[in-house]
């Protein structure tokens, strides 16, 4: 292996995820996710979705058009939320506008069959 030794990784962290919600007071509110979902940002996603369930939503939508990356921790959040939704009598967590790279992740783990994906 060529190289002069381990290199310090870049200083600025890129990961940032931001969220906003639409249709909050309807029976299908939608969470818009922006950025990348990894171990550092998936807890925040969980929090947002949990808040919507607590608000009484029976059906949730999550819009991923602006999400470029998701890892297994992000998938875990979605699975957990769906379970909680169903425990409360709710029906479905709909995934919208899933992009190509994240879709691959859903496919490999079989989660593309668990969630309804609308594109």
């Amino acid at each position: 292996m060529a190289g002069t030794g381990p290199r310090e990784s870049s200083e600025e962290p890129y990961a940032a995820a931001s969220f906003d919600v639409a249709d909050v007071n309807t029976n299908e509110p939608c969470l818009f996710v922006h950025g990348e979902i990894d171990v550092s940002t998936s807890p925040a996603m969980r929090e947002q979705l949990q808040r919507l369930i607590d608000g009484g939503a029976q059906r949730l939508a999550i819009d991923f058009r602006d999400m470029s990356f998701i890892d297994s921790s992000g998938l875990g959040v979605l699975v957990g939320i769906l379970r909680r939704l169903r425990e409360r009598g709710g029906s479905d967590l709909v995934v919208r506008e899933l992009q190509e790279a994240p879709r691959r992740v859903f496919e490999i783990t079989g989660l593309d069959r668990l969630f309804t994906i609308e594109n």
Partner: protein
Amino acid sequence: MTDVSQAPSDPFDQRLVSEFEEGLLQAEALLDAAPIGFTVYDLEHRIVDVNPMTAEMNGVPREEQRGRRLAELRPDLAAQVDPLIDTWLREGVPVTNAPLRVASPDGNEEWHWLTSVFPIKISSGEIIGVGATRVDVTAQMETELALRLIVRATDVVNTAEDPGVVMDGLARIAIPEFADGCAIALLEDDVLRRVALAHADPETETLLYRLPADLATWRQIEPVAGAVQSGQPQLTPRPARDGRPLPRSAAQVASDLQVVSTITAPLLIDGVVGGTVTYLRTQHSGRRFSTRDLVLVSELTARIAAALAGQRLRAQAERASARVELLARVGELIATELDVHERAQAFARAFVPDFADRCAVVLYEENATVARVIAVATREGIVDPPVALYDVTGDLPMHQAVKQRWPQRWTADKLQEFFKSLPENKDYVDWMNLRSVILVPLLARNEPLGGIALVSYADSNTHALDDALALEIGRRVGASLEHAVRFETERATAEVLQRSLLPTSLPSRFGLHIAARYVPGSDHARVGGDWYDAVELSDGRIVIAIGDVVGHGPPAAAAMARLRAGLHVAVLDSDRPGELLGRLNRYLLTDSDATMATALLAVHDPSSGRLVFANAGHPPPIVVRAGGKVEIIELPAGIPIGAVDSVSYGEVDADLGDGDLLVLYTDGLVERRGESLDVGLERLCTAAAAEAGDPDVLLDSLLELVLPDTGAADDIALLAIKRVIPAPGLALALDATPETLASLRQDLRDWLTNIGAHGREADEMIVAVNEAAANAIEHAYERVGERFWVEGYVSNDEAVIQVRDAGRWRPPQEVEDRGRGFDLMRGLVDALDVRATNDGTEVTLRRRLQRARERDLASI
């Protein structure tokens, strides 16, 4: 003149009588003898007297005419004459040469007379009577008509080109002045074949067309038989009643038309009765022919016969030249480089349309037990042959021809009968419209190969093909097709052999990208000579070889295999290309059967880029530098291996830089007939410069240089090697906190781009490494300030990435997400290796790069 004192009941004006007597007494002798008719009428149309001529013309004795009116004696004449007299009397203008038409007493002929009417005056000027003269011009009219028709006939022959048009014109010239209808027919093979038909009335003409075009039973029609057998024209006033009864259809037509009279005359062509011309008169005109008309008919017939003789000569000349042309065409095709199907199609086409309307070429298969139609040509061009295979039995006409080794001619009847019994063949040819079928056997070295079927339809004008010519062509076509069949078999064998002897995969080395192509030549005689190979040495260097064995076919392919084996053995002992060539040379010389070969060897060190060449008569290699510049490596020519003992081969150094391409090729790529090698080389260099970059893409574009150009005659072998200095490895140290994952992903992406992994491939690898990194971060949660490491490199087109931490590994079942993480990793890489100890965990991910996968696919 007789006694005029036999006065009529109403006495004439006496003055008239005395004037008449006196005046005419003097001319009596003249009038008596004159061939001109004279009549004297009084002003009330009563005949005073007539001369003998007039008496004859009127058909009434002289004495009975006196005092009578013409209307009482000859109403038909009076109908024409009286108005003339009245006109004169009224207008006072004398009538001169007015035409009269009158039927003969027996009704068979029509006569033409001219009459003049003039006043008879006395000295005072008073008109006391009317004189009329009459002259018979029938003969003159007929002569004039004859002349007119003859001129017309000459015109038709001289101005029309198409034989059909000429015949039609000749049939029409005598209508309607002479005849109501005309038919011209030719006698061929004892069958009377209609050539032209015409009638004054178009509807009747249509009716006449109902007569059969070919009349084999012409002997039963008496006038026709009589004309042909006697060589004399036959006049039949009432054909339906004379002689033997007509064949049913002809009789029917005759009665439909109400044929009144016919003349059938033989056409003497080249001194032999070659056909007939029939003129007919129907109720349409009502007149009958007379013997006088025979003269005109002879004249017209002679003209028609002359025209036909001329056409026949022309047709003979055309047929002769068509035969010569056919032989020439067939000869040309024999020499052409085509495969079996194309040759068969070309041969089938050669016969159409001059000698057949439809031609099929049939070949035997399976030891001559089944026959397959392989090509069919029609007037519209090549059509798909029927798919069926035919059993080779004795019955099918084709097989009889082959058995007897002689062309078979089957007439339409025979064939229709035969094929009616074979329902599956029914629709293949238009049986109802057949004229003839000729089956020519294809004989090759006196073995049956198949046959050619030539079909002619009834209404076409294909030339006859005589047996001798047919047989000769059958031999030539047979020999040519047999040669093509045999050659295709050989060629297929040689190609399979060739391909199986070339290396199926090339070394794939860290830093080297190798591509190869082999295309067999279209010149069948030269398949099998080219070869190439690449052998890895134990120290990472590689020996590359390309060459061209002299000779062709399986022997050349075998020689090529021996050379490859020889090279693999020789490299165990030597790594110098000059020495290697020497060994191969001695190796070939030990085998007395072996032939010579050109060869070019290169030894390459990918880590330093060095190249060492040695050449034995092969065209020079070219190097395409990374910037696009192309260089021809100058090497000494060298003697081909296997030619002479104790030859030494010199070596030449060169080098390949990062991104440079070495291209080796055989002369099929650059040699073109009529061109010097330099021109071909230059073309190669230009094309190579345009497409530097990927070796596979380059080789394909080089092939495109040559192949569209009617295909290369020679084999082509191509080899390209690109040197790529490996990209630097990846080495990162990160804090074991989740926040570092984002920058890890970015650095990974940069490195992946550097090594040529993009898009989806990169995305997937990033996901996998991210999972491993997330694990490492989790292992470190126990301790603050911990780090983890990510390292990567590329080897043999495989990306290898390792994620290492020093924390405590926790089994996946403990955290539900972890399981999913592992699935994800495993699904995105080719190999996942986890080594976990209490001192830390090492996860190694391997994935073959897309570019390598694509290359593998392309080489299949």
